[in-house]
C-alpha cells in the first residue's frame, strides 16, 4: 500500500511551490510595512488603525490575500524544514517528522481560515 504522504505528495508540492512563489510575493510588502516601516515610525501607525485594518481585512479580496499570506508560507516552511531535517539528520525520522510538520501546517491553515472569517 502506498504511504498516505506519497498519495498527498502532488498536493504538498503544489502548496509548497505556491508558498515560495505567492508566499514570497505577499510576504514582502507585509514584512516591509507591518514588520518594519510602521514599528520604526517610517509610516504613521494610523495607516493600520483598527478601523482601517478591519476595513481592508474584511473585504473579500483582503480575506483571500490574508489567507494566502498565512497558509502558503506555512506549507513552504513545513516542506523545507522536512528536507532540512533529512539533509542534516538522515531519513530515519522522516516517518515521524514529516506528518508532524504537515499537521502543523494544516492546523495553521485551518486557523487561518477561521481568522479571516472572524474579521
Amino acid at each position, binding site marked *: 500500500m502506498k504511504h498516505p504522504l506519497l498519495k498527498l505528495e502532488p498536493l504538498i508540492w503544489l502548496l509548497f511551490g505556491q508558498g515560495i512563489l505567492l508566499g514570497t510575493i505577499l510576504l514582502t510588502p507585509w514584512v516591509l510595512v507591518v514588520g518594519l516601516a510602521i514599528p520604526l515610525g517610517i509610516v504613521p501607525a494610523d495607516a493600520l488603525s483598527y478601523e482601517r485594518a478591519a476595513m481592508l481585512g474584511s473585504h473579500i479580496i483582503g480575506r483571500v490575500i490574508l489567507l494566502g499570506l*498565512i497558509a502558503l508560507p506555512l506549507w513552504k516552511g513545513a516542506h523545507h524544514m522536512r528536507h532540512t531535517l533529512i539533509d542534516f539528520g538522515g531519513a530515519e525520522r522522516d516517518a515521524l517528522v514529516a506528518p508532524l510538520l504537515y499537521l502543523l501546517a494544516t492546523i495553521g491553515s485551518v486557523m487561518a481560515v477561521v481568522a479571516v472569517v472572524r474579521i
Partner: protein
Amino acid sequence: MAPSKPGSTRTAPPQLPDQFPFGGRYLAYTLFDLTGILYLLLGFVVLCAVWSLGSGEAAWNSVLDRHRSIFYIAFHAISLVGVIFVGIRFFSFFPKAQLPRIGPVKPPPKPVILATLYALWIGVTAFLSIVLAGGIF
C-alpha cells in the same frame, strides 16, 4: 526477464558531499532550505496578527505595540533578507524548470519569464505596500 540469482554488485552507502552543508555551492542550497524556519515562523506571526484583528481593537493595538519591540524588528529585518533571498533564488530556477513545450505551445524565452516574475513581484510589493501604508483605499 529477471536474472536467476541476484547480482553481486551492491549499492554503496550514501555519503554526504565534502562541502555540505556550508561550503561552496551548498551554502546557498542550505540557506534556501533553512528559510523554511523563517517562513513557518512568519506564517504564525501573521496568523496571530490577523487573529487579533478579529478579536477587537485592544488586541490589534497590542499586536502593533508588540511589533515595536527590538525582538520583532530584528526578526522582521532577518525575514526581509530571507524573503528576498528566496525570491531571487526561486525566480532564477523558474525559467529553467519550464517544459520545453506543451503540445504545440512553447514557453516564452527565459529572459521574458524572468522579467515577468520580477515585474509581478515588484508591482505587487509596491501596490500592497502603498495600500498598507495608507496611500490608497
